């Protein structure tokens, strides 16, 4: 029984072409991202399957998946909002933005709203310190200069 769809495998195969044939583990990060895009999060079974697909030890895949914040090891809400709270952001309102969201959504970091819409996460530097406060929606969409108004707008938009 395969958890990865044929399409996902196709995408992983494409990633694999970027590396030498005996270095399949180089595609581990992209394979995990592809798997996560398909399933929303990385279950143990899914990681096991990625390991098998790439000929890696399962624990080596687990090492990668636990190292990076953007891999979800638990199911998340429909929208995962990750706010940067590292020092440069914190000095420019990052923490405040996070606090505002916590209050607005009624959840703490690493929690999901009761309606399953939002999960709030604390993120590490996103390389956009000058745009603080910054946040990421579902790992893919970067939002900069997140004032309270813009946060309200974002939440409204995502709710729809």
């Amino acid at each position, binding site marked *: 029984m395969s958890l990865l769809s044929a399409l996902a495998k196709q995408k992983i195969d494409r990633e694999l072409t970027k590396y030498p044939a005996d270095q399949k583990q180089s595609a581990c990060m992209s394979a995990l991202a592809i798997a996560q895009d398909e399933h929303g999060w990385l279950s*143990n079974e899914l*990681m*096991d399957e990625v390991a098998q697909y790439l000929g890696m*030890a*399962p*624990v*080596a895949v*687990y*090492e990668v998946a*636990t*190292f*990076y914040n953007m891999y979800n090891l638990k199911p998340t809400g429909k929208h995962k909002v990750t706010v940067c709270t590292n020092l440069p952001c914190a000095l420019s309102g990052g923490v405040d933005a996070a606090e505002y969201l916590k209050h607005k959504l009624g959840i703490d970091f690493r929690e999901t709203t009761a309606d399953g819409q939002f999960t709030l996460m604390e993120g590490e530097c996103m390389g956009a310190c000058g745009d603080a406060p910054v946040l990421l929606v579902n790992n893919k969409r970067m939002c900069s200069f997140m004032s309270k108004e813009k946060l309200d707008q974002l939440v409204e938009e995502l709710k729809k």
Partner: protein
Amino acid sequence: MIKLEIDGKAVEVENGSTVMEAANKVGSFIPHFCYHKKLSIAANCRMCLVQVEKAPKPLPACATPATEGMKVQTASQYAKTAQQGVMEFLLINHPLDCPICDQGGECQLQDLAVGYGGSASRYQEEKRVVVNKNLGPLISTDMTRCIHCTRCVRFGQEIAGVMELGMAGRGEHSEILSFVGRTVDSELSGNVIDLCPVGALTSKPFRYSARTWELSRRKSVSPHDGLGSNLVVQVKVDKVMRVLPRENEAINECWLSDKDRFAYEGLNSAERLTKPMLKQDGKWTEVEWNVALDYVAHALANIRNEHGADAIGALASPHQTLEELHLLNKLVRGMGSNNIDTRLRQLDTRADGQVKGVRWLGMKVADLAALQSVLVVGSTLRKDHPLLANRFRQAAKRGQQVNVLHVADDDLLMNVANRLIVKPSQMADALAQVAKALAALKSQPLSKSVADATANIRVSDAAQAIAKSLADKEKVGIFVGNFAEHHPEFSTLYALAQEVARLAGGTLGFLGEAANSVGAAAVGAVPGSKGLCAQGMKSQPRKAYIVFGAEPDLDAADGEATLAALYTAETVIAFSAFKHAASRYADVLLPIAPFTETAGTFVNTEGTVQSFNGVVKPLGDARPGWKVLRVLGNLMKLDGFEFNSIEDVRADIAADLQGFVAGKLNNAIGEVTMNLAPATAGVERIAEVPLYAADPLVRRAPSLQKTADAKRAATAGLAPDVYDNLKLVDGQSVRIKAGAAEVNLPARRDPTLPAGTARVALALPETLALGAATTLTLEMLPVAVTIGHAAE
């Protein structure tokens, strides 16, 4: 070569050496945790920081290449400050509770903290706590103590060949774990206990049973596989508490297999025999040694007088010492019998007359690495020879082509160049294919008998590929494993392996079954031309048997039939360290000392003679086997049993033991009739000896018996076609029949097996009834259905 200066001392090192290696050379100690000479460089603990002239900051000695003219200070104030700083960081999260830690007293962190740590901690905040993991029956964890050196992880990746432990998380959240609660099942896993510099990974069987300073360390040699790993046996008040490796680069390097490391538990088994016992009127009574030995001397004399000496046979374990086997051999031959054998699992001895000497590895273990292409024939390599497998694994990384001819496609955790996996009955055929292909590639004629036998066989692609690998390379080795030695057509396989080695211009070797297989053959504890082999003594039952160290029901190829022969004998004298099935068929049980309680010698598979002393006093009234045999020889008035010491016995074998053994080693074999059998109908049995069932000691080691390997041994692995035909579900039992015998075992689908085969192990009580059967009939067991009370 590079010239540099360490602590003012000039030193020259090879190109590519590190500062750490250079410092070791001049004897400057640099504190370290993650550095280990057998593992790759991780440079993650930073404990080895040193001062290097002109470098703007302290550099890690383990990862800094030595360069020409470098000037290094390992203990300057500058270096020390750096080292002390690192130590302070390491201790931030490490518990400071050495008195309750099992590693206390043998902990590198504790030792180095004495030299580099502060007297009090400046850290006031909360420490981090990491939950413990269950890694199986051998390794105990205290993960809060981990300092993330990743030695255990690198060991799995680089030495054991399988990454079972990893470091998950990042930064402060890093922790060592196995993938979602899996256990660590490698047959080399125990080495991570030695590697872990702190008390994070410790020995589960030894846990909290003694402190290192209470233990005396005594040298010994492992009595299990043919490698003869060197041991340090740790002893507290005449009890063996633990076994550790003794470094010997030529043999076991710094490693031990789990069998070598944990089998000591069997020494303290409740089944130990501690008093001589006599069966009188069907009841066992404990007696004094003189009574027991008088009885034995009379019983043997009676049999000899009534039935002739040939009515006496001896079955001895190849795990017994050289001295014991020499005296046993002398005793048996002195009485006039030639029936003595130590190759209890060898079914096929028809080529004995053609054998030119004692079979052995054919080279030194350390020289395996230099081979460019090898063919391993019939070996459950990883399980039977964990550390030889590691030699091949390391060599394979450096380009050695490892070719495999076997009955199961076991994952050897190394790069295997070519594999030829066939049913057991087809092994000879497969090897003949390799010979035929090789002859063609080398344009050399096959020897007459091989040419005749192979005239009609077709060379498969895999055989062709193996032949090519052997033909292309200069330094070639052909190694015959235990499975091939136990094969019903061993003689054919032997002769074919010799032919392949000849054609390839390579060396023929035997991986070696037991600790003293080579020694046993060297002192003549094999029947020779006039006596009966173990199989002969089974099929032509003797009136009297001497069973020495072996448990024939489990140690002989056909345990069931051997038992039957023992039951019909008038007298059976069992020398054993343990109470075992002999209490049913023997009339005397003589407690002899296991390897830790007697001086002795093992000759390993490379022909190295390794003598050792007893490390503890014999338990109860047990006595060293050589002393018992000496007294028995005297009682029976046989010549040449006047010895005062073990040295006398050794001198009786030869003045120069090593030279004596070396003179006997020879793998050549003469003409043998080739039997290339057609495949048999029905399911063929793959009858292996499970690694933790191979000798009486390991069978009684409880922790090893809880391992995944031991559990798997007691199941039937079925080839996918066999499994699917029976429509089984995993874990369901099958009934396995061979002739009138039948046993039930849980079934398991085993995709590594060739079609039409089933892995049903030898040497287990569960499969005893099947004897040495080679073909099996399998039936699904009716599934038990429970009706009613479903709601409860």
